[in-house]
């Protein structure tokens, strides 16, 4: 059928709605799908209803949706990541259940395929990336002593398109189906001939838009770090987290384009009958694999580097000690970032190229183990001769240290083409990447979440439940993914919705039990949040330094004011705030109070979110008129926004003075607490000097 052969509604019809399948022909698989669809609808309606009930639309609009404040944008990113994460996690559970139940599973092959495709896509693009970006947004400008990121409105736009793309994925649960081609969506399987449905189109547009958002974020963060640091903060006084963010942002700038190109070309093949990756007329599917991994490999380091940054901060803070080997760590981070562009071929060692090429890329891959190893050793040396406190972030970090090394080890094994020929596309690979993604990226994010939560909201998270969840994560992770190493070595391919060989069964059962433990971990995380919300009065830390922190973000109140710093700090040391505390320079009033200029609220991001969501939906369903309209609307809105001339607002000096003096008074009236009382209500965020 020609692309112009569709009517007003394009390909859309009653049969596209997920429930139609259940009605016309009942099965467990369809029921699972329908339940998921129903949950999405129910959750949306419930959220809208609750918002209306509590009459918070106004606040939501003025304080959040139109905000350009990096801290709020960061929080919105994280909330978004958590919503998507819930879906990704549940999908993981269902997949584990299916494989534990196999050979008599309960899902259709295609349904299972949609699960691993959405799970992978969501976890990478809509959980890991937004979580990282959100945390960076929240923390990085504070750490470098800036008022905001370099381009606050651009920041808003990045969030907007990312969220729109994520929503598109959610819609795919209810209307139509998602791609079955995995998160890497290799053609020709995902091409128009073999997959004429809308599934891969959902994938293409979600990737293109979220990719654009990530690229813009990368630009924003890079410029912020390079150009907006506080006076005196030269490169070697930047906190380690900022270094990792800088490298990760550079990866965003240079690694996202190949993905966008690959996805767009796949789209051209599908929509306009081009021949980039088709079987016939000179198309070449190998180009796709090459492009995808040109992006895909840097991507995984893009995710893990900021997590390394979080661990560096956590190890140092909770060992009450300077970070060991700062320069080594910086150099290691940079080497990882650069090397990550030279190894992409290790994802297709088995495509048939000459051994010379495999050798070059294999060795380049293994080289990354050296700087990573240095990092691991440096973290150990940071704890050495410290005073280690076993707090929640620290438990995640120690879990990371032990478990990640195992994942890295399996990575090095995979880097040997000889071995990769045998374990490529098996569960061994699946175990490898979950072993680096969960203890690496997710534990990092969770540690950061527990660590910086008080800075964002002004109160601490419940420590007991936090620890529970950390331990459950660690146990659950090991139970879920270590068996997969075994099953992979025994030859079980990845993406198998079923298997005949009963040798795999025990592994799958253990893995399923593990997934249940992970579910408990997630539940305790949610409980932790609820309990902490309940106890928020008791656990307030208004002074702002609950953990005896070392860098600038701890030197201001919690939650931080919209302008961050009453007076932009001058930096003289790497652990600036620790130095300040020790020399009695902390908690001083500014010399003079000045007016502060910050950007006004801006509806641009929200409008773009809605419009690009509509645009993507229209494209997926071939509703050309709607696509055209929304594209035009986007252009008009953007142009119109450039005609807003007074986009800044002034916070008067008097206001700043009032805020600051109130806070300083609070500091004076607060009793500093020692580290032993860190997790008790006595902790008001004023740390006692202890050495």
């Amino acid at each position, binding site marked *: 059928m020609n692309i112009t052969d569709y009517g007003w509604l394009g390909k859309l019809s009653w049969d596209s709605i997920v429930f139609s399948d259940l009605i016309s022909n009942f099965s467990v698989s369809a029921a699972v799908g329908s339940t998921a669809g129903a949950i999405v609808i129910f959750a949306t309606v419930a959220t809208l209803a609750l918002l209306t009930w509590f009459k918070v639309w106004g606040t939501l609009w003025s304080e959040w949706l139109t905000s350009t404040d990096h801290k709020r944008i960061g929080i919105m990113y994280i909330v978004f990541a958590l919503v998507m994460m819930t879906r990704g996690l549940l999908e993981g559970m269902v997949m584990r259940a299916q494989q534990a139940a196999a050979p008599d599973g309960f899902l259709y092959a295609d349904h299972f395929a949609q699960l691993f495709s959405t799970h992978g896509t969501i976890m990478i693009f809509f959980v890991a990336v937004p979580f990282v970006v959100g945390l960076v947004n929240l923390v990085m400008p504070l750490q470098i002593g800036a008022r905001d990121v370099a381009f606050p409105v651009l920041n808003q736009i990045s969030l907007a398109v990312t969220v729109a793309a994520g929503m598109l994925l959610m819609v795919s649960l209810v209307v139509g189906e998602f791609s079955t081609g995995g998160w890497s969506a290799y053609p020709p399987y995902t091409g128009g*001939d073999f997959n004429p449905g809308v599934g891969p189109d959902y994938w293409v547009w979600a990737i293109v838009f979220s990719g654009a958002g990530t690229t813009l974020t990368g630009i924003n963060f890079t410029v912020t770090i390079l150009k907006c640091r506080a006076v005196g903060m030269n490169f070697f006084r930047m906190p380690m987290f900022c270094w990792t963010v800088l490298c990760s942002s550079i990866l965003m700038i240079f690694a996202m384009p190949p993905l966008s190109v690959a996805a767009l070309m796949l789209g051209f093949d599908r929509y306009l009958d081009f021949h980039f990756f088709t079987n016939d007329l000179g198309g070449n599917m190998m180009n796709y694999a090459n492009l995808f991994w040109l992006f895909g490999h840097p991507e995984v380091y893009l995710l893990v580097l900021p997590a390394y940054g979080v661990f560096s901060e956590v190890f140092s803070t909770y060992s009450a000690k300077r970070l060991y080997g700062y320069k080594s760590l910086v150099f290691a981070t940079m080497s990882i970032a650069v090397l990550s562009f030279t190894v992409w071929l290790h994802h297709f060692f088995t495509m048939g190229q000459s051994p010379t090429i495999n050798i070059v890329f294999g060795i380049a891959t293994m080289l990354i183990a050296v700087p990573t190893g240095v990092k691991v050793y440096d973290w150990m040396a940071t704890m050495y001769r410290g005073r*280690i406190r076993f707090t929640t972030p620290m438990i995640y970090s120690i879990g990371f240290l032990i478990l990640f090394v195992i994942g890295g080890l399996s990575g090095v*094994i995979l880097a040997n083409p000889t071995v990769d020929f045998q374990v490529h*596309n098996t569960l061994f690979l699946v175990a490898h990447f979950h072993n680096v993604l969960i203890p690496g990226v997710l534990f990092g994010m969770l540690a950061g979440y527990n660590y910086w939560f008080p800075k964002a909201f002004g109160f601490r998270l419940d420590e007991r439940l936090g620890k529970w969840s950390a331990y459950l994560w660690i146990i659950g992770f090991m*139970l879920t993914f270590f068996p997969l190493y075994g099953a992979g070595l025994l030859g079980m391919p990845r993406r198998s919705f079923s298997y005949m060989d009963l*040798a795999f069964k025990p592994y799958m059962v253990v893995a399923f039990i593990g997934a249940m433990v992970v579910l408990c971990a997630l539940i305790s995380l949610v409980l932790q949040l609820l309990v902490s919300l309940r106890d928020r009065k008791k656990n307030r830390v208004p002074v702002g330094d609950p953990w005896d922190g070392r860098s600038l973000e701890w030197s201001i109140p919690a939650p931080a004011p919209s302008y961050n710093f009453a007076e932009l700090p001058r930096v003289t040391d790497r652990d600036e705030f620790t130095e300040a505390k020790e020399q009695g320079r902390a908690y001083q009033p500014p010399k003079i109070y000045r007016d502060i200029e910050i950007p006004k609220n801006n509806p641009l991001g929200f409008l773009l979110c809605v419009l690009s969501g509509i645009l993507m939906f229209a494209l997926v369903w071939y509703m050309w008129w709607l696509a055209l309209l929304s594209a035009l609307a986007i252009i008009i809105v953007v142009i119109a926004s450039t005609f807003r001339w007074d986009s800044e607002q002034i916070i008067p000096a008097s206001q700043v003075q009032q805020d600051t003096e109130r806070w300083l008074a609070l500091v004076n009236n607060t009793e500093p607490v020692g580290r032993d009382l860190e997790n008790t209500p006595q902790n008001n965020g004023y740390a006692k000097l202890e*050495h």
Partner: protein
Amino acid sequence: MDWNTEAPVRLLQYWTRLRGYIGCRPFWLIFSLPILIFLLPHSIHATETFLEPLGPVAHEQKTHFFWATALTMVAILPVFALVPVILIKYRRKKGKGIYAPKWESYGPLELIMWGVPFLVIFVLSFMLWRATSMLDPYKEIEGVVPPIQVQVVGLDWKWLFIYPELEIATVGELVVPVHTPVSMILTSDTVMQSFWIAALAGQIYVMPGMTTKLNFIATKHGKTQGENTQYTGKGFTEQKFDVLIKSEEDFQAWVAQVRANGIVLNPQTYKRLAMRSTRKEMQKQLATPQMPSNALYFTLSDPQLFQSIVMRYHSGKPLSMEEQPGTVKFGQGEEKTEGAQP
């Protein structure tokens, strides 16, 4: 007995006592879990793995796997060993270690930290280089007898094996004589797939319009399985085939049997074979009672079949979906293709 209510209590008592022994925190118990998991039942015998090699290629791969693992341990074991020590010695509450809050760099230590991993990687790189050039799947294996040629075509969801010199072809069964090098050339007549016989050689991708090569030799009699590892739709998990390694005489007998019982693989048969279907489904359509229950036998009508399959993608004309095996439309009319109900 009121075992039920007592059990948790008793468990708790053990637990506290255990904690007493270990000193603190549930930590140590948790981190000993990996060991328990690696002790999982290896009792059930699996043969579709390179850990039970039937030929030198897979054997070499297995050896390399263990060597690589052992060598990386040099750099990794210190982490396992030292992290607990550091945690105990320097914990805030009862730690006995000294406290040096400003200590941040020490030259010789720095050197070790960079040096040890670098050396390990250096040695590993050397091994990698040797093994990779030795095990190039394109390199023909030198044996006492000349290699036997097999042409492999990936279809949805089955593998077609053509023995051009013997003028036979099979689906679902690959039979090779022991101690004879096998030289495969592979292509696909649908989407990209990944061909794999774990016990004999590693994977290699197959792509329409292109050919890849795979060489191996079997040195043990026996039976194993091969498969596709690249997800290609609902029949993916069934795209497997038996691999039988026979002595020269048995092999000849088998060839004779295929010749005698095979049906002719002409364009019509090939077209039916190429449809989206599993081997089992094809078996129902094409098999004769003389064929085994899990394989199809053919005699070749056109020795250039393989070449024509590859060259069809280079005709310079577009292939419509009706002519493209692996699509829903290829010769199947309007049939619905929901996933198979389990």
